[in-house]
């Protein structure tokens, strides 16, 4: 009997410490990566100041101490070269967990946290937009650990509610980015209306867009063989599906996935499909490898 993987989605999403979870996920995903997928930390020396108790000792200039017998702390001017916006779909459909017992929202939460952590650790700015029918929560893009904690705190409080209206939310999220940056959208993408237009607009503006399509195994395979009454999580509508519904569902769902793949290919949007029963690091790693391979910064 072997110990469950620490990257098991069920285990990770059940941990309360999102910062720890994000770090574990990033470590797992980026292990072996020789290049940073995002722009590295760039800091320019700005000035010395007297040491104050509590300053990080790694910034103490020991050579100066040796010369002067006084403690001075180096101060740097941080330069964030990348502005990133993590956009998370928190509509009711994201509450579906399936047999993996990991909801899409929980999966999206960890993925968003990992991305935010990765970006922030590189010294870049990261923000957060949580949406359903409109943007429900917004954290502007900033760099730094303190800001990262704000982002993680917002993700921790995130709950699934409301119906999806992605186009308006995306437009707003993109408009909130003051300069060209990276837009990372995490959603189940059921709302296709006008979303393509907003994505195209975001790319035209100059943003780099990456789409993380979160799904459960049940949505992909529709394992219901007999007769079952299904209830739409967002609208509350119900529908009786018979034994023959599986074939047509799989066909139409495959067409749905193909549409998204085609759209993303058309507009050079990175498309990553993630199933909630797959380990988080695998999904993230694929994206990071593509990003490193493409030389994108």
């Amino acid at each position, binding site marked *: 009997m072997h110990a469950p993987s620490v990257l098991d989605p069920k285990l990770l999403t059940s941990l309360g410490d999102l910062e720890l979870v994000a770090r574990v996920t990033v470590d797992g995903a980026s292990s072996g990566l020789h290049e940073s997928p995002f722009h590295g930390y760039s800091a320019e020396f700005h000035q010395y100041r007297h040491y104050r108790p509590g300053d990080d000792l790694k910034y103490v200039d020991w050579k100066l101490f040796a010369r002067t017998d006084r403690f001075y702390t180096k101060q740097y001017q941080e330069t964030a070269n990348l502005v990133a916006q993590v956009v998370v779909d928190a509509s009711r*459909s*994201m509450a*579906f967990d399936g047999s993996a017992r990991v909801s*899409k929202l929980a999966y999206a939460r960890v993925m968003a946290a990992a991305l935010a952590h990765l970006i922030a650790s590189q010294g870049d700015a990261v923000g957060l937009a949580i949406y359903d029918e409109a943007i429900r929560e917004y954290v502007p893009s900033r760099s730094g650990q303190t800001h990262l904690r704000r982002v993680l705190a917002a993700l921790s409080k995130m709950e699934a509610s409301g119906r999806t209206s992605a186009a308006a939310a995306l437009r707003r999220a993109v408009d909130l980015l003051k300069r060209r940056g990276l837009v990372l959208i995490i959603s*189940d993408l*059921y709302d296709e209306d006008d979303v393509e237009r907003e994505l195209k607009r975001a790319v035209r503006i100059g943003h780099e867009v990456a789409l993380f399509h979160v799904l*459960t195994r*049940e*949505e992909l395979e*529709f394992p*219901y063989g007999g*007769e*079952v*009454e*299904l*209830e*739409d*999580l*967002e*609208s509350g*509508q*119900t*529908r*009786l*599906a*018979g*034994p*023959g*519904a599986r074939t*047509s*569902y799989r066909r*139409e*769902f495959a067409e*749905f996935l193909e549409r998204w793949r085609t759209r993303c290919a058309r507009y050079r949007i990175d498309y990553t499909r993630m199933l909630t029963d797959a380990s988080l690091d695998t999904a993230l790693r694929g994206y990071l490898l593509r990003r490193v391979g493409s030389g994108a910064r």
Partner: protein
Amino acid sequence: MAWQNPEAFWALALVAVPIAIHFLRKHRSARVPFPSLRFVQRSHAAAVRMRNLSDWLLLAVRVATLGLAISALAGPIVLTPSRLDAWDRRMARAVVVDTSESMRMAGEGGEPAAQAADEAADKELGGATFTRHFQATDLGDGMARAIAWLKTTPPSRREVVLISDFHRGAFDDGAAARVRPDVGLRLVAVGRPGEKRRIAGAELLGVDDESSRAETIELTADATVVTLHASAHPAARGLRFVLPPNSADAAGAILRSIARAGAPAGSAEEPIVFRFADAPPVSVTAIASPWMVRTVFGMIDDPALQAESDASQSRSLDRTDPWIVLANDRDRKPMLRAAAAGGELIFDVAARPETLFAASVVRAALVAHAAARRDEDEQEIAPIDRQRLLAWNRPSPPLGNVSPDVLRRVESSDARWLWAVVVILLACEQWLRARTTRTDVEAQRVAA
């Protein structure tokens, strides 16, 4: 409306099934949350759920379809006056032709009655809607078969036509009464025997100084003359006695006594053996030959035997015992029983050969044996009075009230009309179901 198979209506209980399924289905299916119903097609079975008026209509159509299908299986028959008239105009006729021995004898014109009977039968068979030809040596048996066939004919008037020479004894009131009141009867007399007929009668037993005699019987319409003349055949042929010790003369004594009383001679081809009390036993088997059976059962009602045996005699037909017991004594011990030994008929008499009972048994056996060999009725020359024949005739009555028996004989019910409506309803059900599905798709599109 009448029904051929009303018991099919028990299946109407099945109508409860689609109704029950509808009400059960609402609660039976598990409700499962799902992110989006965009790609989920509605089940056709969902049409059973009562969400709106079209579902009520669908259930009504289905119940009606099932009900009409069951009604069609029940075999509906619409009893219109024209249909009943048509049935009454039809005739089912069973023609029974007498093929007994008397029909083969030459008649007045020198030709047998059978020829005239065939011509009459052809004429009768051509004049009805449903006909069947029966041949019978016994008119009663032929009539029974004819009536059994008439029970299966389609609704129509029914009659039995008997074609025979109707000599005296061939038909009587009892036979006429066995024809059902809803079946007509016609007696067609054919042939005419000659004014007189001479036939060979029985051969009588002669023993020792009693010579064998033979009968010649001359029949006329008014009289029967029996003439006895000497017979050249040996006496007592076919008879054998198994006697107790010291009874050598007993056999002769028996034969002499019954010959004087008058008894038929035996037959070498059908030998009869008599074993008496205290005689050596004989090995026997069960009787199987028809002449032995006719002889034995012909003895049962012989008055002489009845007088000698106890009134409480009983015939034992124990299947494990080859003996047939014909008479018991007061202590219920067999006095007379019969069995077979090879080709011989064995009578075991529980009395000594010197007794009167022994002689009675021998005579009764010979009389029964002779009677079984000859059907004297068929020799009768006198016909049944024509007026009497006409009195037995009666026309076939109209159908009247349509009974279940009549309904079962209808060739084809009116179920085809109900099946046509069932097909139309099935098409309606398909259309309603398709409309419900289209409505759902539209609603889904609007919602999306």
